């Protein structure tokens, strides 16, 4: 059974968990990265080819550019992952877009050596085509890792981009509001998802919540607009006291 979380021992002895990214997230990140490196490599060759076709430019200029493009294009394609993962500390543009990053099994950012080993094993992971070995390993390994990760001791985890925001808003709400924690969580959840919900849904949920939490709010009589409901919820959180 695949693990959902990577449990790491914190520096102070308190365990913490990082959510492990599955094959879907990996594939999504890989596809974005693949498109970027392919476009960059092909773009370089295209520019060099166009330069050769332009009239009036001597061969002594176009030939070195053409050779440079032929040498650089494969370098861009094959060194994209190792170089960017080292420079961006376990990220690539694709991984960033997918909300994932590479960490060690101890939950720290991998060293250059680990990242290189991880990338060298793409040679095996991509066999016999379409990353079949890597994908197979991902599907059946405990931590959903490919061979390269197994050897390098790395794991792809999901980032928590809202960690600081959630902590800050919670701290603020707990200071200003007298409501119990679970009530604050419900309000916070609703406000976070406000734009994603349908108008009727968010209005109904807001009215239900206000009826339970705000003394004097009469569900049958109050006919507040959507914006007014939102303001009342924010006031309960203490943000607009």
């Amino acid at each position, binding site marked *: 059974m695949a693990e959902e979380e990577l449990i*790491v021992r*914190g*520096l*102070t002895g*308190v365990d*913490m*968990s*990082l959510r492990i990214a599955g094959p879907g997230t990996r594939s999504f990140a890989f596809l974005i990265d693949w498109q970027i490196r392919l476009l960059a490599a092909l773009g370089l060759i295209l520019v060099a080819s166009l330069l050769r076709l332009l009239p009036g430019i001597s061969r002594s200029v176009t*030939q070195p550019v053409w*050779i440079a493009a*032929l*040498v650089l294009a*494969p370098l861009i394609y*094959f060194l994209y992952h190792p170089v960017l993962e*080292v420079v961006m*500390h376990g990220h690539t543009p694709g991984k960033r877009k997918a909300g994932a*990053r590479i*960490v*060690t*099994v*101890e*939950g*720290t*950012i991998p*060293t*250059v*050596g*680990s990242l*290189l*080993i991880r990338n*060298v*094993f793409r*040679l*095996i992971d991509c066999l016999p085509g379409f990353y079949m070995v890597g994908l197979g390993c991902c599907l059946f390994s405990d931590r959903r890792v490919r*061979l390269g990760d*197994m*050897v*390098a*001791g790395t794991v792809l985890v999901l*980032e*928590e981009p*809202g*960690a*600081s*925001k*959630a*902590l*800050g808003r*919670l*701290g*603020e*709400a*707990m*200071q200003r509001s007298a409501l*119990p*924690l*679970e009530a*604050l*969580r419900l309000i*916070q959840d609703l406000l976070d998802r406000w734009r994603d919900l349908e108008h009727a849904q968010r209005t109904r949920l807001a009215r239900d919540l206000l009826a339970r939490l705000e003394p004097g709010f009469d569900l049958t009589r109050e006919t507040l607009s959507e914006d007014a409901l939102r303001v009342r919820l924010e006031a309960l959180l203490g943000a607009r006291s």
Partner: protein
Amino acid sequence: MAPDPDSSATVWIRARAGAWQALAAEVASAPQRSRATPEDALRTLQSYRTLARSLANARQLLPGSFLTTALADACATLHVAIGQPPRFGRARLLTLFRDDIPAAAASVRATTLWIAALLGASALAGWWLVSTYPALVSLIASDRMIDGVEHGHLWTDQLFSIAPPELLSARIFSNNVVVTLGAFCSGILFGLGTFYMISFNGLMLGGLFAFTHQHGLAHGLLRFILAHGPVELSVICLAGAAGTALGESLMRPQLATRSESLRRRGTELGPLLIACALLLLGSGLIEGFISPNPRFSVPFRLAVGLGYWTLMLLFLGGKLIPRPKAAGG
């Protein structure tokens, strides 16, 4: 009577809410820093300790709650930020070349000799096979190569005229890198993949020499590989030894589990692959610019080959970059 957990939790939360709100900014900024001052680092560590303490308490007082999740996420974010390795600057580069690469090379020294012996034995076997059964050469050489040799031309003769040396070097370098990395990575099949790759390369080398010898062209092939061959073959042996070491870590794990053992060995051998890639870069340049060029004499090629090989030995032995003298006393 036991205290009401809800009320004690509420009191505890309200006492710390302000601190958490203040720490949120640190949680947001710490992972974004590419360079941290000592003050930044200390502040991040202090924030981490405070959050970890709060997390431990929250797990006791409010297990599975929204607050515990928020604290755990914040704590994990800072944990990753704190574990960021130092920048890969000059000092780290110096350590890599002066200490890490020689240490990794030394750890596989005996295995490298065994792999070199395997390569040599396979080459002899290839020579014997092709000498005894000449038709077997079609297994290791293309029809065009065979046809050319039968008409008195080595396939290396035209290399200099069909592609610019820069392009030739790049192509040769990438081919060699794939072979070398393949020899390393296939070690994960308990070392058998590496043995197969080394043996196959040895068979090819010996077989091609036997075939060219039959047509009186062996000295031409030797002349071609004299400048780049010593380092190229040594690097393949080195990568093969690293692959074998990887396989050995699976067969005879030195740590509690095979996966831990593989991980440890993989990380130790990482620097060796960097060395292999750099040595192959030099080898590719020699093979692109010097080896196919008929203007260079045999003594010059020999000097380049031996010189570069000696440089490789010094580099892998840690003799190229002097160590700082230990303080006396």
